[in-house]
């Protein structure tokens, strides 16, 4: 269980996360959605102790993230940020192997090797495994980083827009994989998603943020409605239904075709 109480983050006079309280019970996919600058990434970074908070407290399975030793947390929770630059030249395999660092401290065991293989196969990276990551396409690189996090094998996985840079095929496959991590391996996933429709189809719960606060929280069907979309994104979005899930047709807005004025 992840528990946040009164979490606040300020940058000078700007409050980017304003006294957020939230409880994420174990299991399932929780999607964080909202407009740019709503504080989603900052909130996720604070849960993953990459960013210190100004006020409040975050506990993961009862462990206070700002006080618990890093190596203890690293076996419990992993976080993948949006921008992933690596300062040194690594091959895909070497990067994925780093995911085992919390378990083996750099000396890989046979079991670590098995985890690495599995993660690489899972993300279809076998043919690139010897290639330096700076010579991969954006999508391949993104998958390599997800493989690293997968390899870390933690109960809680925090992902900040992992579908960025992915084409349709890889985006849907990756999201499907993330869904399977929750369903089959019983991991707790908190994911920042840009595309509300991925949240609609794959998330169990949608938490919407705006101006540093949570403005809506519920099942996809409760949250993704024309009314609440207008409230969260300041945008009139027609919401349809597909496969029993709401679909926001935001991509058509701005075109006159939508209104039959072609």
């Amino acid at each position, binding site marked *: 269980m992840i528990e946040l109480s009164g979490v606040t983050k300020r*940058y000078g006079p700007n409050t980017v996360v304003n006294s957020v309280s939230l409880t994420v019970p174990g299991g399932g996919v929780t999607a964080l959605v909202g407009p740019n600058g709503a504080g989603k990434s900052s909130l996720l970074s604070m849960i*993953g*102790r*990459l960013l210190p908070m100004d006020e409040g407290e975050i506990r993961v399975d009862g462990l206070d993230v700002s006080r618990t*030793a*890093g*190596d*203890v*947390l*690293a*076996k419990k929770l*992993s*976080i*993948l*940020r949006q921008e*992933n*630059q*690596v*300062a*040194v*030249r*690594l091959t895909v395999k070497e*990067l994925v192997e*780093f*995911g085992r*660092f*919390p378990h083996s*401290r*750099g*000396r890989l065991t046979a079991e670590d090797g098995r985890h690495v293989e599995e993660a690489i196969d899972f993300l279809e990276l076998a043919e690139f495994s010897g290639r330096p990551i700076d010579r991969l396409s954006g999508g391949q690189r993104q998958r390599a980083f997800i493989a690293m*996090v997968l390899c*870390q094998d933690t109960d809680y996985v925090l992902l900040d827009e992992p579908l960025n840079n992915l084409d349709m095929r890889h985006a849907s496959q990756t999201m499907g994989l993330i869904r399977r991590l929750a369903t089959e391996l019983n991991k707790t996933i908190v994911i920042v998603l840009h595309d509300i429709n991925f949240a609609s189809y794959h998330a169990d719960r949608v938490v919407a943020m705006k101006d540093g606060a949570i403005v809506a929280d519920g099942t996809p069907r409760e949250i993704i409605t024309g009314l609440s979309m207008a409230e969260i994104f300041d945008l009139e979005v027609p919401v349809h239904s597909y496969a029993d899930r709401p679909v926001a047709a935001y991509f058509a807005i701005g075109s006159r075709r939508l209104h039959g004025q072609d």
Partner: protein
Amino acid sequence: MRVNRWRAALAVNGRGILDSGRPVLVLILLGILLAMVTALFMTYDLKGSLDFALELRGRKVGGMLLVGFAVAYAAVLLHTITNNRILTPSLMGFDALFVLIQTGAAFLFGTLAFLAIDVRLRFGIEVVIMLAFAAILYRLLFGGENRDLFLLVLAGIITGTVFSSLTALIMRVLDPNEFLTLQDLLFANFSTVNRDLLLVSAAAVVVIIVATRPLLGQLDAVAIGREHAINLGVNHRAVVRQCLVAIAVLVSVSTALVGPVAFLGLLVSNMAYQLTGTFRHRYTPAAAGMIAAIALIGGQFLLQEVFASVVRLSVIISFIGGIYFILLLLREAGR
């Protein structure tokens, strides 16, 4: 070049096996080369009293080994914690501060009084001031929300310039006799290494190497970036703090022994990364240290015995290192 030829010769059979063993192979070859250079330096053209000559040369070799390892290790550590391979402790003003401390002390207390202090005590005080500087740098690195690398580098360059300018100012107002004594102290070359200082320095380097050993595995994770390292459970702040302390001590050692050797660290660490083909800290500090020692001992030997030149080794190193630095900058810009 010898290493390259070996590698080419060995690469023919079984590339895979060789690749995984490459850092080890490079370390072994560097070790052999270092032993050969050292043996040559110690035994070449021995004349007169054998004991005296060996002791004198041994002291020189000891000084160069220490300086080589200290400079190389400090550079590798700085590269890792800043995730940048073209910084050196001297670019950040570390050795300029050391020179300023010595000059300032000579100015305030007079060189004679300064020299009268026990070498070990003097070195201890200098190291303490260096550590204070490292603490300030640490605050700059991790104090605010903005851990902008460029800001840090700029701050380092500016403080370095301030330290050098202050040193120059003090030297100008110094009594000419005092100045001569000071200059001797500051630009002590390898031929005049103080025995006590050598022992203190050796102790300091050994302590640092032993104390940082448990860090080496974590440094591999730090090298791939701060956020990844934290995610993987590394206490990033603590590791960086310990590295800065180590850098301050190592730079104090090398600067106290031979004065500033600006580009040596940059040169040897990058050569080590290239030769070993890895960033793993199990290999890079040792490789860089041996390359530095080979360059210093070999270079000193060539200057002394072959060219009989009056040019100081540090000048040549700065010249080569400067060119290499520009090449690195161009390569980084081209990426």
